[in-house]
């Protein structure tokens, strides 16, 4: 069996060689035969002629030899492909319309599927991801208190390791400057549990967990290492300052590893035991009532998720008994990691699958469109079909020819669609949400997406190709050749195209309605009354508390900055506040108890009246609001020595 496959494959791929050898072999035969005849007394010219007659028609003989090698389907395919390309070249307008509409349909599907792939299907880039689970409460809470985490970690028997982590902002100083940076607090076994190897240096060790505040270490993400340290390997072992304290860089995480949350791009990892220093003023490592630790664990290889959860719940029962007030109703479940456990998984999946549904409707509409175009073309090609049938082409052979044409269209459309999807996916991956938190998705076209695009294109080719092809092959050659354009049952063909048009209109109606609905929703969101007028407002954030200012110094600074900004030409008003409307603001909210309500009434500047901005007496995380001339404000800050530890941010 394999020998025949091999023989056919050799014949297909070594086609020129096979042809050459076949011609040479037959030439040899003719020469030998002619020699024999000459020897028997036939004149040479006559001998050559007779040798040719005895052997028979050469081309037919070659054809039979090719068939013996199992080449028939491939020869047919070659012929069909060449013919299909010739037909499409002859009607470039049709080809362009067909390929473009397919490219849009397939591109949309491939793009949406690559998002589904990124957030729902693709596992984290870690070792044996199928055994890694997030521990969350049955009610869907991802956070646990650190003491609860320690108890779970030490008492369980089913996990190779349980690691704790927390998203945290910090102020990082290095030779490259000072920035507010988002990172992770992570326990010493964090990288071991996730099964990641360092690109450079080392990761945290269990020992780094021992004593709070005594492991000033940092691991950099690949992106941060590239962006901030220029990919310099000598960074390992150097000292950077985080929240004014020195930390040693011990390692760099591999490229593409962003921790266990799909949407979040941390720049740095710091041991969990440094929490009191990173979140200064709010130490919670020994507080059982602060549920700030997220837990991820790796099951032992022979343990099922159910056994793991049962094990944790047995421990939870003990925790409830010991701390009934705080841990009331504590019950755990294991969830796939990536989307804050799986708290966001339901909505994300529903949303992306919904969009995928819409995208497939787009493709269906494109298919219906193409099917009716092809049917129209088929009626133009009735004479051609009729001639081929009268020459003896079988129905199946005609259907195959026409299907080859639609497959060529579909695959060309699929290839351009995949190209479109690739470009948009790259743009989407590079896009950063305009909020403080580094939210980013890794949407790339991997093999699975390409396979998806290929299968979708092939399916589309069959979908829009089969019906027209079958209809064309049913052409009655007699009627078509005799009666000119209109053959039998013209109403029949029209009815078929009418159905296609109806399907197309229905699909387009659904799509247009869905588009308008979502546009309307977006539009509403844009004009939703905010209670103030955001036009012409520029915002800058700076963090003087982490830069070591005392509260009194911070107040002085804030007042001075405001006065300086007000002096800028074009600035109508300026104000500072601990929180601005409609923004995520973790740092401020954790300190909100300190904020007193406005001492002086600052108006939200560009606005005529409504919003009163609270002014913060604490120096923690203040914001400036000013009008226009952003670059000048920026220049002012950069030239102002007392502000050298702050970083203006544009919102």
């Amino acid at each position, binding site marked *: 069996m394999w020998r025949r496959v091999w*023989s056919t494959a050799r014949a297909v791929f070594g086609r020129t060689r096979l042809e050459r050898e076949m011609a040479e*072999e*037959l030439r*040899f*035969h003719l020469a030998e035969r002619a*020699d024999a005849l000459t020897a028997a007394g036939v004149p040479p010219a006559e001998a050559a002629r007779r040798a040719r007659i005895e052997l028979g028609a050469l081309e037919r003989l070659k054809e*039979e*030899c090719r068939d*013996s090698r199992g080449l028939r389907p491939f020869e047919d395919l070659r012929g069909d492909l060449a013919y299909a390309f010739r037909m499409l070249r002859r009607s470039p307008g049709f080809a362009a319309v067909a390929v473009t509409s397919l490219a849009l349909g397939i591109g949309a599907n491939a793009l949406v599927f690559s998002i589904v792939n990124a957030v729902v299907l693709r596992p984290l880039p870690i070792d044996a991801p199928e055994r890694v689970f997030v521990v969350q409460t049955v009610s869907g809470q991802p956070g646990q208190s650190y003491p609860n985490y320690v108890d779970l970690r030490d008492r369980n028997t089913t996990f190779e390791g349980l690691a704790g982590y927390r998203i945290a902002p910090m102020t990082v100083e290095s030779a490259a400057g000072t920035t507010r940076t988002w990172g992770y607090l992570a326990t010493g076994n964090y990288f071991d549990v996730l099964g990641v190897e360092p690109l450079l240096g080392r990761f945290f060790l269990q020992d780094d967990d021992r004593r709070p505040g005594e492991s000033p270490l940092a691991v950099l993400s690949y992106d941060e290492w590239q962006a901030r340290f220029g990919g310099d390997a000598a960074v390992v072992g150097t000292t950077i300052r985080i929240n004014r304290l020195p930390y040693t860089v011990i390692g760099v995480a591999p490229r593409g590893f962003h921790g266990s949350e799909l949407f979040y791009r941390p720049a740095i990892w710091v041991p969990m035991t440094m929490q009191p220093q990173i979140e200064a003023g709010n130490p919670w490592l020994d507080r059982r009532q602060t549920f700030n630790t997220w837990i991820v664990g790796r099951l032992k290889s022979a343990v099922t998720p159910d056994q793991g959860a049962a094990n944790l719940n047995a421990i939870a029962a003990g925790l409830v008994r010991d701390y009934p007030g705080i841990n009331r109703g504590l019950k755990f479940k294991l969830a796939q990691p990536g989307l804050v456990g799986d708290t966001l998984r339901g909505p994300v999946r529903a949303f992306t699958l919904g969009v995928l549904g819409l995208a497939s409707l787009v493709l269906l509409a494109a298919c219906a469109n193409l099917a009716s175009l092809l049917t129209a073309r088929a009626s133009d090609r009735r004479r051609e079909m009729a001639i081929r049938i009268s020459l003896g082409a079988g129905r199946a052979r005609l259907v195959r020819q026409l299907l080859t044409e639609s497959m060529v269209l579909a695959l060309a459309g699929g290839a351009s669609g995949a190209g479109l999807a690739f470009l948009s996916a790259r743009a989407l991956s590079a896009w950063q949400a305009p909020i403080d938190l580094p939210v980013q998705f890794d949407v790339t076209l991997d093999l699975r997406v390409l396979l998806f695009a290929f299968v979708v294109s092939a399916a589309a080719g069959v979908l829009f190709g089969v019906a027209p092809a079958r209809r064309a092959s049913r052409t009655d050659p007699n009627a078509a050749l005799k009666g000119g354009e209109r053959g039998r049952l013209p109403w029949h063909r029209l009815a078929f195209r009418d159905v296609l048009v109806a399907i197309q209109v229905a699909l387009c109606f659904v799509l247009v309605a869905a588009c308008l609905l979502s546009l309307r929703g977006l539009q509403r969101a844009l004009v939703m009354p905010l209670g103030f007028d955001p036009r012409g407002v520029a915002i800058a954030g700076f963090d003087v508390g982490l830069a070591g200012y005392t509260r009194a110094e911070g107040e002085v600074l804030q007042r001075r900055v405001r006065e300086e900004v007000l002096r800028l030409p074009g600035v109508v008003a300026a104000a500072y506040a601990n929180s601005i409307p409609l923004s995520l603001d973790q740092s401020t909210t954790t300190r909100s108890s300190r904020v007193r309500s406005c001492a002086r009434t600052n108006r939200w500047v560009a606005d005529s009246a409504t919003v009163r901005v609270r002014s913060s007496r604490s120096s923690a995380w203040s914001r400036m609001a000013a009008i226009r001339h952003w670059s000048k404000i920026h220049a002012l800050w950069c030239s102002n020595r007392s502000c050298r530890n702050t970083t203006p941010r544009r919102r």
Partner: protein
Amino acid sequence: MTERADLLPGTLDLLILKAVSLGALHGYGALLRINQITHGALVVEQGALYPALYRLEHQGLLDTEWGASEHNRRAKFYRLTAAGRKRLRDETESWNRTAAAMTAALGTRSREV
């Protein structure tokens, strides 16, 4: 000269295998060899020979190799593979059985029934 007979279906492949088993041959040589070993009694269509050779090669029963003919022309030589030898043995046995049965059947006289 013996009277010529038509080839029975399926016998061409067997004849080619037999001819080639006696020594590597090019296509034209196979034709001559068959003519020789059948004493010219069986007619092999020249046009039918090559598709049969290609088919047997495709089935892995024959191996090919380019070499020089007796007139010093470049020619493609066919030789039997191990699978080809086995096939020749099996087919020969089966042919002999059929032939013996046919001979016995056709030689039957009415009083032997």
